[in-house]
């Protein structure tokens, strides 16, 4: 039964942090190259544009949800299962979601990278 709780927490963490990463990435693409913008119009323009972006605010909300799901998960389950399982799965779900929602060109190199890093993270916790 505890396993079921742990895996539902892992599902919640993975869904929330993938949503957050996708929203934050979309927000920053809308803002544009931060370095160039800073040199052109100054730090306050950059901060204003980032903080007023709705995708950024929703992304931060999703990341906060992921963080609290992790805290809840850790109170139900084992840290050695929940932390690496959610970190590792997020690499894979992010690659899928970035392809679908951000239309990134996820070629074989990027799939390999996502799978290798996900596997590596699992082994580091073993």
């Amino acid at each position, binding site marked *: 039964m505890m396993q079921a709780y742990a895996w539902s927490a892992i599902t919640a963490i993975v869904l929330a942090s993938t949503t957050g*990463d*996708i929203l*934050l*990435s979309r927000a*920053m*693409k809308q*803002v*544009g*190259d*931060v*370095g160039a913008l800073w040199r052109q119009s100054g730090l306050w323009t950059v901060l204003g544009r*980032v903080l007023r972006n709705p995708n950024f605010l929703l992304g931060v909300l999703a990341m906060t949800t992921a963080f609290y799901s992790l805290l809840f998960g850790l109170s139900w389950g084992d840290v050695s299962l929940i932390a690496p399982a959610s970190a590792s799965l997020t*690499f894979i779900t*992010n*690659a899928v979601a*970035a*392809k679908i929602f*951000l*239309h*990134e*060109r*996820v*070629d074989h*190199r*990027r799939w*390999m*990278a*996502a*799978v*290798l*890093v996900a*596997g*590596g*993270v*699992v*082994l*580091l916790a*073993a």
Partner: protein
Amino acid sequence: MTFRKYLVLAGVTLCASIGDSLLSRGMKQVGNISLDHLSDVILAVLNPSVALGILLLLGFFASYMTALSWADLTYVLPATSLGYVLLTLIAKFYLHEAVTTSRWIGVLLISAGVGFVTQGPALTHHPEKPHKAEYEPASARPR
């Protein structure tokens, strides 16, 4: 990819891994926080390791957002996963922890993944022009 952009990616990696280690060390010094004394969480910020850890995690967020403004998510995430490797090296050579064979294999897999992704373009639709013509077959050069 310019040198400045690689510096930002290094900032993401270093701030995240060092920040996490500092927070972990600091919270162990602070000790258990019970739900009856939630104000202890606020006082935990007075611990130097916790304060520095929070500063570094703010630095992580700023550099992560900067990287996402000019690179794909599927580039930034694997490219900055070297932090896991760094944490293992810190554990082995600085904290003198025993690192098992399976963890070293994990380090190898992550490093290989980073190698794969950084060979490709950083941004979809806006591939950087190659700096040198060395990757270009001779027949493709304009005559």
